């Protein structure tokens, strides 16, 4: 009997556990990365609970334009989520008794805000501006998907940095004519590439010197 605690057999075991550890670490990192991209963390295509089951589908089918509610989308960085008053423009008369609209009436009577759950939310270290996109030929549908077909609103894109950059490198893939910005069904790819390139010129979108991929335009 030797007094050694470890025999030569343990050498293999040690090597094996090293290997296992490396594989485990790689697996863990891979898993975290998958989690990071998953809709569980990103909420991509996940219908979000809201205080009132507001349906874009119902309302835009009535022919209500996005700007009736998202009033500042063309003029400011923030698109605006409508105040209770906007809902009451119609619901003071229509569906007055509906249970679903209970919280709206309550908010109207008490003056307390409805707390909508944020659907699209960038980290606070990213600067985003709606007006600059909407006025340069990028339609709502390109970033938000077919909102007009959503009963409960969901996030269409995971909002990764690479997604912003993909377009900033080559906006000609996505631009559309000025009168189609709010047209949810319009597909920019239905235009030939030359026409879209002409549009980029027309809007004066300047991608020279990697201007639009400069870190400091988004991380100010």
């Amino acid at each position: 009997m030797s007094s050694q605690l470890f025999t030569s057999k343990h050498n293999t075991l040690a090597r094996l556990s090293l290997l296992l550890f490396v594989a485990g670490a790689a697996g863990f990192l891979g898993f975290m990365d998958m989690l990071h991209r998953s809709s569980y963390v990103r909420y991509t295509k996940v219908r979000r609970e809201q205080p009132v089951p507001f349906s874009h589908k119902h309302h835009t089918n009535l022919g209500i334009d996005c700007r009736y509610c998202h009033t500042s989308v063309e003029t400011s960085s923030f698109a605006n989520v409508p105040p209770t008053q906007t809902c009451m423009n119609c619901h003071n008369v229509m569906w007055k008794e509906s249970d679903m609209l209970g919280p709206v009436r309550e908010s109207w009577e008490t003056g307390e805000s409805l707390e909508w759950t944020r659907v699209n939310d960038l980290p606070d270290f990213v600067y985003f501006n709606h007006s600059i996109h909407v006025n340069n030929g990028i339609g709502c549908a390109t970033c938000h998907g077919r909102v007009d077909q959503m009963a409960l609103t969901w996030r269409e894109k995971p909002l990764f940095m690479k997604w912003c950059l993909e377009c900033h490198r080559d906006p000609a893939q996505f631009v559309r004519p000025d009168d189609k910005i709010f047209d949810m069904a319009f597909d920019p790819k239905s235009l030939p590439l030359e026409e879209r390139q002409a549009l980029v010129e027309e809007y004066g979108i300047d991608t020279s010197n990697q201007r639009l991929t400069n870190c400091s335009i988004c991380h100010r």
Partner: protein
Amino acid sequence: MTLRPLHLIFCAGLLVTAGCGPLFDIRKAMYDQPKYEPLEVTDFFGDRRSARPLIDGTVAQGHIQLDDHLYLGLEEEDGDFRQAQTYPFPITADDLNRGEEMYNIHCSVCHGKSGHGNGMVVRRGYKEAPSYHRDVLRNAPPGYFIGVINNGFGQMASYSHQIPVEDRWRIVAYIQTLQRSQFANVEDLEAIQVFIEEPITEHSSPEHANEH
């Protein structure tokens, strides 16, 4: 017992796992920084609004509304106020186009694209909106419409909170154009010719240009 590589690796593993928690917290702290985005909720104030409402009797910088003509649609005449008969700024073709766009966004859902009062929401059971082509409204001055947009009218709510003030005037100019369009005559074609080339007459509405 001496330290072996295996022990070291094990300890390193523990450290990494333990370190991950705070590491994610730091990332979280950068994602949600102690600043407020528009409309963000706060726990600091009782009503949970980070954007504070104005204190009664105060005016936000740059928001003072001294111009009664522009903001209220009122004109002073012999010391009395009456509904403005004119526009506070000249209406150009661009203004009319903007007016059309804004009208179609904010008014047409009830009043209909042509102003007959048969918009989609009315068809779904909202109180019927009156046609703009009735005589009373055809003869109403721009100031009357501004009053309705600002204060509402019967069942119709006020729209001032969702339409910037200049756009309200552009909407009115467009409504008066709609009204005119329903009762156009041959002379109007000449007016249109002029209109396409240059702005309509200064400070006069399409409606009242007709009264002479």
